[in-house]
């Protein structure tokens, strides 16, 4: 079994289960209510599959009014709620508790409006990330944050975790693109914050709600920014003899005033696996590979890629390959896009999400490799280099519970290393249940207490997505 403690379910609540289900049926007759064991088991985990716990019931409302009615009832009766989008969290953010009700937004998927005058889309929270871009595509617009799960993940889930993505070096993350929300508070109150204009008024509640991991309220609708699609984009591939050289090249590009859309980094083990799997034609004699993508007109792209190639020359690249067209672009991206699938073919892996200051990259990679060796694991690194968001993949055997425990300990050491280098525990996956007990490595007591007081201001009884983000003893501290 793994290391994290799950709080004991409240026996009194469990005993009331039949009545709770009856009341929910009465309150929201049109909502989908799942109460059978098999049905509940479908929701027992998210993408962090090492943790499982079937909830008391699952309710899938189809309107803000239904969400409000459910929350008000649960508030009045002291019942915990675990909000859920598509369940793609890698941090256990949607892990149920035995005495909680899972409230899923999967039936609220409508795109309410695509407003090309104000450059916003208004969508229900269960709409997938990609659906927004698809709906805006006929007018030439898109929704910029693009987490790698964008085919499945919902905008509500993106808001909960402040999702990033491959393009965020240029475009920023979810919080930079959400202009308004309709949010249901735990007591059922419905609030509209911001809207189809820039800069919401009053206190910056959007900053708190985005990234709050479903602990402050349930977002049912969002107004998000739409961006006009660039004229074109093309990548180049650079191979280096060392991570130091690759890191220095990234710094050189940024120092020259160039902000590419994406700078992706792969180390030697990752390159090997991706090449074996995808046959993308990646060089196998390099220790580090960068994929750098820029946007603009054809001429602008040529000029930028040429400038980047010139900068790269200073760091003695072993390979420089510039895409000149769609086919070559696809070939360069092929291995990277297949990376996580390729890894999954050779081994189970535990994906970390720490962030470091870019200048500490070589040191970080060396020490991560050392930590993994000490725990007898292989590690591969694939990550967004422009912003220092590392994704070390610890390769382990998931069917061996002792290995899982060891992988978790190894991961925790890596994340503490990131913090000690001046970085943070998580850049885009969220704290969830996974990193809850590591929060004290990054924050002092006073820091955490201030965050928890904010939690209490929104949800005084701590019923929303409990046992996540803060150490279990946290609530007493606040």
């Amino acid at each position, binding site marked *: 079994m793994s290391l994290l403690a799950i709080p004991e379910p409240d026996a009194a609540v469990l005993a009331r289960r039949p009545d709770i289900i009856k009341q929910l049926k009465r309150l929201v007759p049109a909502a989908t209510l799942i109460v059978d064991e098999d049905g509940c088991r479908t929701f027992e985990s998210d993408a962090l599959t090492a943790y499982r716990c079937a909830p008391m019931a699952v309710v899938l409302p189809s309107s803000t009014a239904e969400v409000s009615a459910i929350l008000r009832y649960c508030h009045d009766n002291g019942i915990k709620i675990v909000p859920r989008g598509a369940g793609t969290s890698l941090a256990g953010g949607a892990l149920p508790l035995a005495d909680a009700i899972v409230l899923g937004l999967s039936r609220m998927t409508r795109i309410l409006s695509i407003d*090309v*005058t*104000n*450059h916003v889309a208004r969508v229900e929270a269960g709409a997938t990330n990609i659906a927004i871009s698809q709906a805006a595509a006929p007018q030439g617009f898109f929704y910029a944050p693009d987490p790698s799960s964008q085919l499945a993940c919902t905008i509500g889930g993106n808001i909960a975790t*402040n999702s990033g993505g491959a393009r*965020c070096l240029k475009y*920023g993350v979810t*919080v930079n693109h959400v202009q308004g929300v309709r949010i249901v*508070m735990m007591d059922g109150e*419905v609030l509209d*914050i911001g*809207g*189809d*204009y*820039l*800069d919401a*008024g*009053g*206190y*910056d509640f959007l*900053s*708190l709600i985005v*990234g709050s991991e479903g602990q402050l309220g349930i977002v049912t609708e969002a107004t998000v920014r739409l961006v006009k*699609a*660039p004229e074109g984009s093309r990548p180049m591939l650079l191979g280096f003899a060392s991570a130091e050289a690759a890191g220095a090249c990234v*710094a050189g590009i*940024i*120092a020259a*005033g160039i*902000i590419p859309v994406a700078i992706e980094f792969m180390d030697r083990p990752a390159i090997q696996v991706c090449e074996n799997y995808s046959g993308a034609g990646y060089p196998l004699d390099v220790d580090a590979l960068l994929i750098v993508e820029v946007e603009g*007109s054809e*001429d*602008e792209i040529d*000029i930028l890629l040429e400038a980047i190639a010139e900068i790269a020359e200073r760091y003695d690249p072993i390979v420089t390959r510039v895409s000149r067209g769609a086919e070559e672009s696809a070939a360069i991206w092929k291995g990277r896009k297949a990376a996580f699938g390729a890894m999954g073919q050779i081994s189970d892996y535990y994906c970390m999400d720490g*962030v470091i*200051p*870019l*200048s500490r990259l070589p040191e970080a990679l060396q020490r991560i490799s050392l930590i993994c060796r000490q725990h007898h694991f292989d590690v591969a690194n694939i990550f967004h280099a422009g*912003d*220092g*968001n590392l994704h070390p993949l610890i390769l382990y055997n998931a069917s061996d519970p002792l290995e899982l425990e060891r992988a978790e300990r190894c991961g925790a050491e890596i994340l503490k290393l990131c913090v000690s280098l*001046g970085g*943070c*525990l*998580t*850049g885009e996956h969220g*704290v969830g249940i996974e990193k809850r007990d590591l*929060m004290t490595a*990054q*924050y002092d007591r*006073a*820091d955490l*207490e*201030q*965050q928890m*007081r*904010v939690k*209490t*201001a*929104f949800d005084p009884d701590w019923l929303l997505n409990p046992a996540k983000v803060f150490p279990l003893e946290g609530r007493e501290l606040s």
Partner: protein
Amino acid sequence: MNVHMRLGFHAPQTGEELAALVAAAAGSRTPIEVRGRGSKIDVGRPLQTAAIVSTEAMVGISLYEPTELVLSAQAGTPVADIEILLAEYGQEFAFEPLDLGPALGFEPGQTSIGAMLATNLSGARRVLAGAVRDHALGVKAVNGRGEQFKAGGRVMKNVTGYDLSRALAGSWGTLAVMTEVTLKVLPARQEARTILCFGLPDATAVEAMRLATGTPFEVSGAVHLQKDLVARLSDPAVAGAGKAVTALRVENFASSVRYRASRLKELLAAYNPDAELDTARSHAFWNELRGLKMFCAKPERPLWRICTAASGAARLVAAIARTLDTQAFYDWGGSLIWLETSPILDGGAIEIRRSLAEFGGHATLIRADAMTRASIDVFQPLDAPLMALSQRLKAAFDPYGILNPGRMYPET
């Protein structure tokens, strides 16, 4: 232990000193005015406090890593000083921080970096690059209990816990006193071009701005000035026009701005894009907008800042102008309106808020005499549930209500 705070002006030099002062004020329940360098003390509801705590003695840049696009400075550091350093490395604050000082009767360049985040007032480039708060990475601050806390950090991606650093944006010193601010910085674009259209009616101008900001050419400024404001600017081509001016900016390397400006002019052909400013004149023009130069000439006239959907902006201004004597400057492609009104008793609050109700958004009275500011809602009134949440948030940071009490709302 209730240590009474010495009344009067305090300018602590460290976070520890500042925390001790606030703790003393909390102990004796002494309301304090929180300020940076004081250039915006006349914004908001007038305060009645026994003591003032300023961060003006907390200056200095504690971290600047150009290749990591990150800068940390003590809260009282003047933004102007930081921008000089950034320029040496070819970088800048991409959100083009607004300099409100001159319009309020102060020298330019006085704003502190703490106040910049606390007021979240972004300039023209916000339309492309985001607001001040979008670039906030971390803060150190003192809450109303006198406790020092930190939030966020110094890396560009960070979802570890709640984002308390951004949450202080636009809180006008009512939640916590920032002692250090860490921000994302970006490379400054080498070249700029500004396309000018003359004499467009407001509605047509907003249409042109929406068209321009909806292109792939990364338009980094889209503004429209009504006729009487134009004459208050310096560039002869603008000031001498005698007509309303609509200005659209592109920035990048030289060949790119040439290309983008020409493509934009093609697209905007129907709006008569008759003049163009080169890099140097563009810089001068947009710098004057950043200092709201057109609103410095008549300091006795109230000045409003209105955020609303661009699609309704021109109709909103027209509705207000039916009863008030106004001059409008549209920024952010029409999504922000700066409105100068005649100095009537309520500064135009009733009329502006009544019209705004139809369009949505919020209006803040940025400039008015103290009596007006004491008698009306300076910040947009909130409906009851949002006000209740605002009060709970205030209490979560400042349970005794001692930090700038009432500056934004009587209830916080």
